[in-house]
């Protein structure tokens, strides 16, 4: 399978990465190179093979459903590019 320019732009939008026309062109070549490389996986017979979900067979750990953390609002927003009274500020979302 290979990707065309329109697909590259659509994927870039899905990934929320702005791309220029020139970047999209370059990415198309690179992505097709990588997709060509991974194509060989198709030749492996995987009938009856389960997909791997965990490298180590182990039961999912459980913990008590209790609050163990919190009251750290200042810490949570400490690295925010823009914040106001412990809120993250973003451009207007709802008109």
């Amino acid at each position: 399978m290979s990707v065309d320019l329109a697909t590259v732009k659509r994927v870039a939008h899905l990934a929320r990465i702005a791309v220029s026309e020139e970047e999209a062109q370059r990415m198309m070549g690179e992505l097709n190179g990588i997709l060509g490389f991974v194509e060989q996986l198709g030749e492996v017979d995987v009938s009856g093979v389960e997909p791997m979900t965990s490298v180590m067979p182990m039961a999912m750990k459980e913990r008590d459903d209790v609050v163990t953390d919190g009251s750290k609002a200042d810490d949570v927003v400490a690295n925010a590019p823009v914040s106001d009274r412990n809120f993250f500020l973003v451009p207007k979302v709802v008109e």
Partner: protein
Amino acid sequence: MDEPPALRDREKIRTMTDLTRLTIAEAREKLGAKEITAVELTEAYLSAIDAANGALNAYVTVTPEKARDMAKASDARIAEGKAGALEGIPLGIKDLFGTRDVHTQACSHILDGFKPKYESTVTQNLWNDGAVMLGKLNMDEFAMGSSNETSYYGAVKNPWRANGSNFDLVPGGSSGGSAAAVAAFLCAGATATDTGGSIRQPAAFTGTVGIKPTYGRCSRWGVVAFASSLDQAGPIARDVRDAAILLKSMASVDAKDTTSVDLPVPDYEKAVGQSIKGMKIGIPREYRVDGMPEEIEALWQQGIAWLKEAGAEIVDISLPHTKYALPAYYIVAPAEASSNLARYDGVRYGLRVDGKDIVDMYEKTRAAGFGKEVKRRIMIGTYVLSAGYYDAYYLQAQKVRTLIKRDFELAFDAGVDAILTPATPSSAFGIADEDLASDPVKMYLNDIFTVTVNMAGLPGIAVPAGLDHKGLPLGLQLIGKPFEEETLFKTAHVIEKAAGRFSPQKWW
């Protein structure tokens, strides 16, 4: 002068040996015997970094005040007889580990100015054992790379150069800063992480020892995520014993990481020096790849001979799905990365580039914040996970992964204790190599011998085994059964004893 004799002796030792040349085991002994102080040791490293970092670019941040405070506290604990396992040992920390109030950016522009309010479990374990932090080490952006050239902070120079050449070489990646700092004596040891070979390949390129432990051995809590089912932390050190000492402190069972495995951490150092007599070492025929330099094959044969001499039995084995590990990796890792890196949106931390609306802000922020290689992998990951392609790519790759793991299980079930392979298909290559820069797949082939180990979750160690015709270090890799890192330490030590240790000629 009425100087007390103890002080004069100390002066003598300081001038006699450069303190930065001591291994962790040697420094531990001298600190315990009060021949040197943690402050002296830390000062020696801080001066070495000061003198060398401009040339090598191994550190992206140095934390001298923190280091001095920690060293003073170590000296106090040593005086009180309360020394921890790594008391007073100065370490470098890969920029992927969250360190409270200290630069943590995974060497990416998108985490601009990020200083976490928490400490990763692995680094906290080190500080609990008395280690001293010297600073944060350079790496490929988000650990995506095999040459340390994708770092926002620029390439790291390998302290090794070819004989008679002043051409700059890469230290490998992604833990290039860690490997270069250890090889150039800019820290006693370093933390690193390995998703496809990022500990073992740079260790091989710099003549250092690096171990990726079994998936689940070191907690991933507080470590910036790349590909969560593959990422594992481990140490890079000057020798096998030091790697064992460091791993013992880094590893733990952590309730904060659900993939942390509930097994006690053994005393790895005890394995160093143990006999490998009667052990069965597997030699996988599929690791003899086309175009592999003659020297790598010769090194491999030499490794086989050393292990045989030490009493191990050598058996040929087959790992038939080896060639599919790299293509499967380049689906699984980007898929997980595209999901993990979705969090960098300009809202909660790091860089923000304003836009006309919120989507425009996201897109501009991520366009400006991520480098080329990271964007490339996010794009691949987004594509293979997108509607209509999931089964063909991701599901297929995860099934192939099951087969890769099964190959290893069959070999181990047949009685093999460890597997010996080359660590890399070549020695270190040049910075800004045009051939590699123009073809991402060619760069990816660097991980051909290491990536299978991540896909199967197994432990793997890279140990220096010789120099090539250019005088550059080459490494061998040992792969073990899950949670049998001790087998790797004792076998790697046999190779180390036979091969000797390698240090670069100082040019920086």
